[in-house]
């Protein structure tokens, strides 16, 4: 699985600057409360997963801002306009026609953990998460087709 075209490279130095600032801003904006998790996990996995009622985790669509954060970080801290352009172009491509914003985010997460090499376990988890999502998407698409086929012609 090669890297996506959504990012050129995530750099450790840029990431360190960003994560330090994120922790400080989080504390300022949350009445002195400290972000009690690793910031890399916070900007990646935590943006596309949520706890479900059964205690497990399920995939959710990320906020556009979360996606743009990673696009900017992975493209030499490009401007907001450039990041938006990269996202628009990606969403109009065939590759993300089914998976949409979630698919884009999952690819960015894989690029992030691939480039920074902070943890092989998290990289593996990112790839597995994408596979799981695409598999669920494929199952949903098949169900939709079966429903359409079952409906009688007018």
């Amino acid at each position, binding site marked *: 699985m090669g890297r996506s075209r959504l990012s050129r490279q995530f750099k450790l130095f840029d990431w360190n600057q960003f994560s330090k600032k994120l922790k400080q801003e989080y504390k300022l904006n949350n009445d002195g409360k400290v972000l009690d998790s*690793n910031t890399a996990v916070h900007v990646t996995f935590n943006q596309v997963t949520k706890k479900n009622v059964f205690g497990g985790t399920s995939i959710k669509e990320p906020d556009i801002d979360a996606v743009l954060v990673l696009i900017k970080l992975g493209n030499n801290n490009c401007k907001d306009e450039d990041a938006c352009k990269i996202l628009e172009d990606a969403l109009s491509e065939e590759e993300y026609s089914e998976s949409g914003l979630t698919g884009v985010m999952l690819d960015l997460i894989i690029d992030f953990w691939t480039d920074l*090499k902070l943890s092989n376990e998290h990289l593996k988890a990112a790839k597995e998460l994408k596979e799981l999502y695409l598999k669920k998407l494929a199952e949903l698409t098949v169900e939709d087709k079966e429903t359409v086929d079952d409906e009688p012609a007018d």
Partner: protein
Amino acid sequence: MILNIEFKVSDLMDYERTQDISLLHELECYESFVIFDLIKLGKGWSDDDTIKYIEGLLSQGISIQDIANDIVEALIGRQVEENDEKVKRDINTKYSDILEDYYDTFALAESLSIGEFLNMSTRFMHRYAKGVNSRYVQNMNQQIRKDYRYIGMLLSAVTGNLKACPEIDMNGNLKGASAYEQLEMMHRDRGV
């Protein structure tokens, strides 16, 4: 140990205060920016050299967790186990508090000044602490042996078995004592 790193006590206290973080908690979260800052602090390198060094370690398959645990070992002088009661790595416990506890012990036992303490490296601080502890135990044992001999002498006097008080000659040997008796006294004083 991967990094072979040590820090100056005052640098760690300043870093924790200026960043307003709990060092041990952030290292438990494996925060790469803290790891970067501490390696840069401990090694005295530039940003570029520090980044290259960390990237080199990560490329060799050494995880950020391994690097973080190595730094924690350098900070507290030993490996931290799971649920280590003596080293709480929650948000509110600062490493500076642990350092201040160390200082209180040293100041009491060895009359160490705050300036000397702040200029210590963490590696020396842990060896110093072990030395303080060993000296404390030795001194206590010596005192206990003295008290024990004193009580032995008293009891001997009461039962009429008290021998003549021994003396040491100018060479440090017991006057009139056999070689065996002198060896015994020497071993007792050394705590062997």
